[in-house]
Structures are given as structure tokens and as C-alpha cells.
């Protein structure tokens, strides 16, 4: 069925007439297999500290939001300042359906996907109607407007208090096992997202979108279906973010829009993408862990941390090199790989 071939530096898999290659990276600090292995065995060391487990689960979820955002920015070529809109949409869909209609997590997952798809399709015309900067601004405003909406219909959305008590995804007898299980689930979610986004960027769709980012008219003249691809690159990451919202609802079992929709949360995610480096996708993981650790350690300072945290983020941007970032694209053997340039003001 599937034939595997081991060459000197890569593994080639063939299925019917399709062929994929995995390059084996010799530098251990850049080898994703080593990194992923480390992430998998991490709980062995920390399983008795539930708050560290929560911290790394949160880090995985931050990365799971940042990776589709990076894909969206690469694909549409514009910066999306409001990825948390779909987090809120997905989360509230799952939470409300679970609380008021008693749907179990599998059904709420389906509902989340459907609702996010519908709303993303409704909003996708902004990718081609709104010129570059306008698109970024509209994405900035949308989550704040959604937050307003949750306050307006406060009896339904429970405003600042949020919704509590949704059914958990799984529960074991020992509480520690819950934490560990949630960590592994979030890790698998994040890795699936990474796989999906990586495959998309390295596929024909990815190369075509790189061409569109460079010069849209020329790409169109070469046969690239620009509008269809832009819609795909807007809708798909939105659905993925919505699924993270669903995950949050059923893992942490509380969901308040005010935690996830305002600007503070957005800056966290954006910093993860920016600090992750030009490669954006792989760099999101160490970036997310860094931000999560910083956030957790600052929490001990008390209420001042709300003031110190943005300053620390500014320091991170100023002092961390952005060329290769924390974890550049791991293939150094093809040095002339394509590094996309983000344009905020593009037409």
C-alpha cells in the first residue's frame, strides 16, 4: 500500500501516485522529533505539580491558537488583529449548547465547527473587499464588538462572570490524572494543527499563496484562483481557533468572554507569532511556552502584574532577534527557502 524508502537524509513515502518526503534534521536542537519527544515526556517530571500542568496545558492552547493565526497571516498576507473572535464564538457555542440543551462534547464539537464555518464564510468577503489596512482594523474591532454583544445579552452570556459547569471531556478518579490527560489532549491538538498548517504551507496551495502575496495580478494571470484561496485561508484557521474554544470550554469548564476577547489576550497571541520568528509556524511553540511561563511567574506579583506584563512583552519584542526568531524554519539545507514578508498596508 504505502511504500517507505530510507534515503541518506530523508524518508520518502509513496502512495499510489503521490509522494511525500520527510527530511531528517541532524541538529538536535532544531529537530522537531526531538522537540516533540521532549514535550511528550514532560509530564513525567511535573505530574505532581498541578499548577505547572495547567500552565503547560495553557501554553499548548496558546500555541494552538497562534499556529492557525500564523497560517492565516501567511495565506491572506495580512495581519489579523482579532483571532480571538472565533475563540469566543466557538467557546460560547459549545458552552451554551452544553448547558442549555445538554449536548455532549462530541455534538458540541460538531456544532462549533458548523457555527464557525458559517460566521467565517459570512465575514470572508472582508478579505477581498477591505483593502489591507482596513482588513486589519476591522479584525481588531470585531472581537471587542462581540464582547459588547455578550454584555448586551448578559442574561444569556452571563457577562463578566461567564458560564460555568460544562461537562468535561473525560474524568478520571484521581484529579492529577485529569490534569495529565488534558495536557496530552492539548498537546495532540496542537501537534495536529502544526501538522495541518505545515502541510498546507508546503503544498501547492502554500506556494500559490506565496505567489499571491508577492504580486496578486501576476499570480492571477498564471491561473491561481486567488479569491477561493483567500477564503480558504480565512475560513480554515477560524474553524481551527473555534475548536480550541470548544476545547477550553470542556477542559477548564468555565468560559468568560472577558478573559479571551479583549486586547490583552490578543496581544499575547500576537507576540507569540511575532517572537516565533519569520518561520511563524514552528516558532509558535517555544514562543507560547515562554509567554505562558512569564505570565505565570508574574502572577505572583499581585495586581501589578497587569501593568508589568505588557512591559515584559515590549521588552521581548525589542530584545529578541526577529530574523530567525526563537526557532527558525528548521530546514537549513535549502537556504533559499521562501520567507514571506508581512504587509499591513498592502492593497
Amino acid at each position, binding site marked *: 500500500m504505502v511504500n517507505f524508502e530510507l534515503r541518506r537524509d530523508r524518508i520518502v513515502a509513496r502512495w499510489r501516485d503521490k509522494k511525500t518526503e520527510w527530511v531528517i534534521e541532524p541538529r538536535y536542537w532544531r529537530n522537531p522529533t526531538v522537540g516533540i519527544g521532549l514535550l511528550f515526556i514532560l509530564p513525567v517530571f511535573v505530574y505532581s505539580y498541578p499548577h505547572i500542568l495547567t500552565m503547560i496545558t495553557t501554553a499548548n492552547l496558546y500555541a494552538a491558537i497562534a499556529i492557525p493565526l500564523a497560517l492565516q497571516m501567511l495565506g491572506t498576507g495580512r495581519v489579523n488583529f482579532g483571532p480571538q473572535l472565533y475563540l469566543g464564538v466557538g467557546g460560547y457555542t459549545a458552552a451554551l449548547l452544553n448547558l442549555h440543551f445538554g449536548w455532549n462534547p462530541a455534538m458540541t464539537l460538531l456544532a462549533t465547527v458548523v457555527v464557525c464555518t458559517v460566521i467565517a464564510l459570512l465575514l470572508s468577503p472582508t478579505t477581498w473587499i477591505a483593502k489591507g489596512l482596513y482588513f486589519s482594523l476591522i479584525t481588531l474591532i470585531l472581537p471587542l464588538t462581540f464582547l*459588547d454583544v455578550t*454584555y448586551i445579552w448578559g442574561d444569556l452570556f452571563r457577562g463578566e462572570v461567564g458560564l460555568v459547569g460544562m461537562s468535561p471531556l473525560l474524568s478520571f478518579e484521581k484529579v492529577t490524572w485529569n490534569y495529565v490527560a488534558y495536557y496530552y489532549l492539548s498537546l495532540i491538538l496542537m501537534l495536529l494543527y502544526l501538522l495541518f498548517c505545515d502541510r498546507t504551507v508546503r503544498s501547492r496551495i502554500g506556494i500559490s499563496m506565496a505567489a499571491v502575496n508577492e504580486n496578486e495580478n501576476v499570480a492571477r494571470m498564471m491561473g491561481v484562483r486567488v479569491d477561493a484561496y483567500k477564503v480558504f485561508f480565512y475560513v480554515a484557521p477560524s474553524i481551527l481557533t473555534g475548536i480550541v474554544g470548544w476545547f477550553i470550554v470542556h477542559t477548564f469548564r468555565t468560559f468568560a468572554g472577558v478573559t479571551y476577547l479583549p486586547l490583552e489576550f490578543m*496581544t499575547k497571541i500576537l507576540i507569540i507569532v*511575532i517572537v516565533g520568528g519569520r518561520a511563524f509556524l514552528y516558532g509558535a511553540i517555544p514562543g507560547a511556552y515562554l509567554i505562558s511561563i512569564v505570565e505565570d511567574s508574574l502572577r505572583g506579583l499581585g495586581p501589578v502584574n*497587569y501593568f508589568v506584563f505588557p512591559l515584559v512583552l515590549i521588552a521581548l*519584542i525589542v530584545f529578541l532577534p526577529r530574523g530567525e526568531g526563537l526557532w527558525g524554519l528548521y530546514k537549513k539545507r535549502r537556504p533559499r527557502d521562501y520567507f514571506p514578508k*508581512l504587509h*499591513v498596508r498592502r492593497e
Partner: protein
Amino acid sequence: MSDTLLQIVIYALIWGSIYLLISLGFSLICGVLRIFHLGYGVVFVLAAYLTWAFMEEAHLGLVPSIALMIVVQCAFALIVFYKGVFQRYLEEEEILLTVSILVFLAVAHLANYLYPVTAGVSIPSTIIDDVVTIGGVTLAWQMIIAALAGILVTAVYVVWFMKTRIGLIIRAVSQNLPAALLMGANVNRMYYLAMILSVIPPTICLVVIAPFWGVDPFMGAPLLMTAMLISILGGLGNLKGSIVASYLIGFIHASVSFIFVPRFMGFAALIVTLIVMIYRRGGIFAGETLW
């Protein structure tokens, strides 16, 4: 029915004039520096809390506090934003915008930490502490004064841009930067001037509306959103567009408040902006030049 109509018209005019002040500075930076200043909300927070700090900690009177606050504001805008953020990250716009937001968040949370809402911050800048009734609608004199201040400041700005030499130079810089450079404009100095000019209307706005609008550390975000919507609607960086769009958004807010529920104001304004963008992609006065 006509009562509601009168209310809508009056409040549309008053809010429109107040929004003029809010969006003037934002459009100025957008049109001249071509940078979307997402940290613009800082101006409001600094205006309110610096004045309060000078009055409470240094025990200065109202007017000296305001004067000192304006000086600190200009310094903050020039040093932190212009030199610290804009000049460093001109090439990497996503970082520029993110750092602007972060500065705004840092300042807002600092204000919240030092003077939380419970500390009762207020700026006693009421000029006439009385109400007036116009055909069944009761208004505080302060609101009318705020509206008049808005119209006056905008008029001064427009006349200044149209009639003075420096105004001409700034307009030239906003229309075509390389050509202005070739004509000998000192672009850096114009940028400093534009930054300072953009700080003044929101400061005046805050000082006059503080008595009835209420002061809270996070007031910058909704005001920034309104300024952004007005800019998008009127055409980024276009003064004419800002003026028209301010009254338009004021009208939308007023009608939604009095016909439906006040909480829908922001949402309605967003929907209208999106609809206008479908038909005219650059806003009402597209063209991204100052006038």
C-alpha cells in the same frame, strides 16, 4: 414622536461635535505620518490621570495641572511613541501596531493600579454647572460647551491647515512625501509638529467631557474604537472625511440610543461602517490625503 426626533437631532449634533475632537488627532496622524496609531487611547488616559495626579499629589490647581499635563503629553507622544516606536519599527508594521497597543495597555493598567475606579477620580472642569431645556430636552450646559469646543477647535485646525504656510507644508507632506522632500520641506520637523498637534484635541476633549462622561482607566479603548470607525468611514487620514463621519456616527449613536437600546450603539456603528465599505472601499472620502 417629535420629542424623540428632537432628542436625536440634538444629541447627534452634540456627540458629533465631541467625536470631532476624538477623531481629529487620529486622522491627523493617519494622514500625515501614515501610521495607524493604535496607542491613541493613551492620550485620554494620560490626560485624565496625569491631571488628577498633579492635583492630588502635587496639590496644584486645576489650570496649572492641565498645563503641566499637556507638556508631559507632548513629551510622551514624541519620546515614547515617535522616537521609541514609530521610528524604530517603520519597516515592520505588525510590530509597530502591536507595541503601540502594548504601551496603551501598560499605561491603562498602571492607571488602574494606582488609581482604581473606586478612588473616585474626577476632573472638576465644569464651567457652567447648570442645565438648559430646549423644547423638552434637558441638557447640561457642559455638554453644549463641549460641543462648541469641538467645533471651535476643528475650525481653528481647518483654517490653520488652509491658510498658513506650515499648514500647507503639512498638507503637501501628507499628499506626496517624495515631492515634498524635493520641495525642501523639513519632514522630520513636520512630523514632530503633527504628533504634537494630534495630542491637543483629545486632551481638550477629555478636559471638557470629564464631568459628564466619567473617567475610568479603560476609557481609551472605546474612544479609540470610535475614532477608528470614524476614520474608516470617512477615509483614512482625511480631515473632511473625519468631520462628515463624526456627525454621521454621532447620528447613528443617537438614533440607536433613543429608538432602540443604548447598548447597541457601537454594534450599529460597526455594521454601518461595514456596509459603507462594501460600496465605497476607501470610505466616504477615499484618497488618504489630509484634505
